């Protein structure tokens, strides 16, 4: 990362920072948290919900209904788990950066935290984008068979290069957007913390609440659009 290698070296580290192990540790933490919430929310489920079950239900049902509006009642059943997992993982990853003991990127703070939002690392967001890319084409192939490749030649055969470029740009933009937003946020907060540890970073942190939700939603929304486009029965 920017400066992280130097920072790690400055702190005499390099053991975990050299390949980004702290991102992985945090990612596992995020996953463990999500699984814990899942277990708590679905344990002893009631028809009349309350507490945690209510919150999780609100998220799941809200996202399900939203995706149903985009995909229709048939496809949403198939693709909902994937898309919801994108949303939950990215949202939890973004928000984990708001916790006080999670370190921030930055010239000074870079090496302090062992835990850094996984989505502030391009390798992580790239993995997510690759999953979108792959699932999008796999679902397209499963839906249309080999006829799926026809859409690369539409509307005219000589559009093929442009279509291919678009297919490559999509995951790259997905990965860069998410990484850029979260990393940028962490960088700003880290810099501000290094300069003025009190009060000043608070508005930026509040902005992070907004950014975290918006980026998680945008990623999910775009993934849904791609999958919807690839699996649409248009002929």
């Amino acid at each position: 990362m920017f400066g992280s290698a130097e920072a790690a070296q400055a702190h005499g580290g390099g053991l975990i920072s050299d390949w980004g192990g702290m991102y992985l540790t945090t990612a596992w933490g995020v996953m463990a948290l999500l699984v814990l919430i899942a277990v708590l929310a679905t344990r002893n489920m009631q028809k009349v919900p309350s507490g945690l079950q209510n919150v999780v239900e609100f998220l799941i049902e809200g996202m399900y209904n939203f995706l149903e509006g985009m995909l229709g009642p048939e496809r949403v059943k198939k693709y909902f788990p994937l898309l919801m997992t994108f949303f939950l993982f990215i949202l939890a990853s973004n928000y984990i950066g708001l916790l006080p003991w999670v370190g921030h990127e930055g010239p000074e703070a870079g090496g302090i935290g062992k835990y850094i939002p996984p989505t502030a690392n391009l390798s992580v967001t790239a993995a997510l984008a690759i999953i979108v890319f792959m699932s999008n084409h796999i679902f397209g192939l499963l839906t249309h068979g080999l006829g799926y490749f026809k859409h690369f030649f539409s509307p005219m055969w000589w559009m093929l290069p442009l279509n291919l470029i678009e297919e490559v740009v999509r995951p790259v933009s997905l990965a860069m957007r998410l990484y850029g937003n979260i990393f940028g946020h962490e960088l700003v907060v880290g810099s501000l913390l290094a300069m003025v540890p009190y009060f000043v970073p608070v508005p930026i942190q509040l902005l992070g609440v907004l950014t975290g939700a918006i980026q998680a939603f945008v990623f999910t929304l775009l993934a849904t659009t791609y999958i919807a486009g690839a699996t649409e029965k248009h002929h």
Partner: protein
Amino acid sequence: MDFNIKLMAWSFVNFLALLYILNKLLYKPMLQMLDDRKRTIAESFQQAESARQEADRIKGQYQGQLAEAKKEAQEIIERATKMGEEMREDIVKNAKVEADRAIKQAHTEITREKNQAVAALRQEVATLAVLAAGKVVGKSISVQDHEKMVKEFVDEVGDLPC
């Protein structure tokens, strides 16, 4: 910007694992439950609707029965009124007949009494007349003569209208 293949591969695997776990632990049971709830609510609405229809039906039935009962009551009252009327007429008629009969009987009685009285009066008048005549003539008349004369007189007078 260093790009780390190892971290990317880990993230890839992580995500698929998370997808699998969450699908099993969260999405499936929760969506199933939401579906169940939706069905339960739909069923409840259906039940409420059918209960309402049943209530409407019973209400209609009761209203019908009530109207019928009212009609019947009206009929009974009418019948009773008619019967009362008839009875009244009957009684009045009977009373009239009875009264007529009583009047007629009274008339005949009166007539008979009158006739009797007239007859008695005649007899008395005749006797008095004969007595008076006897006094005038100056001699008494024997009982036989007397009776004979009375008889003659009565026969004579009897034809006269009184």
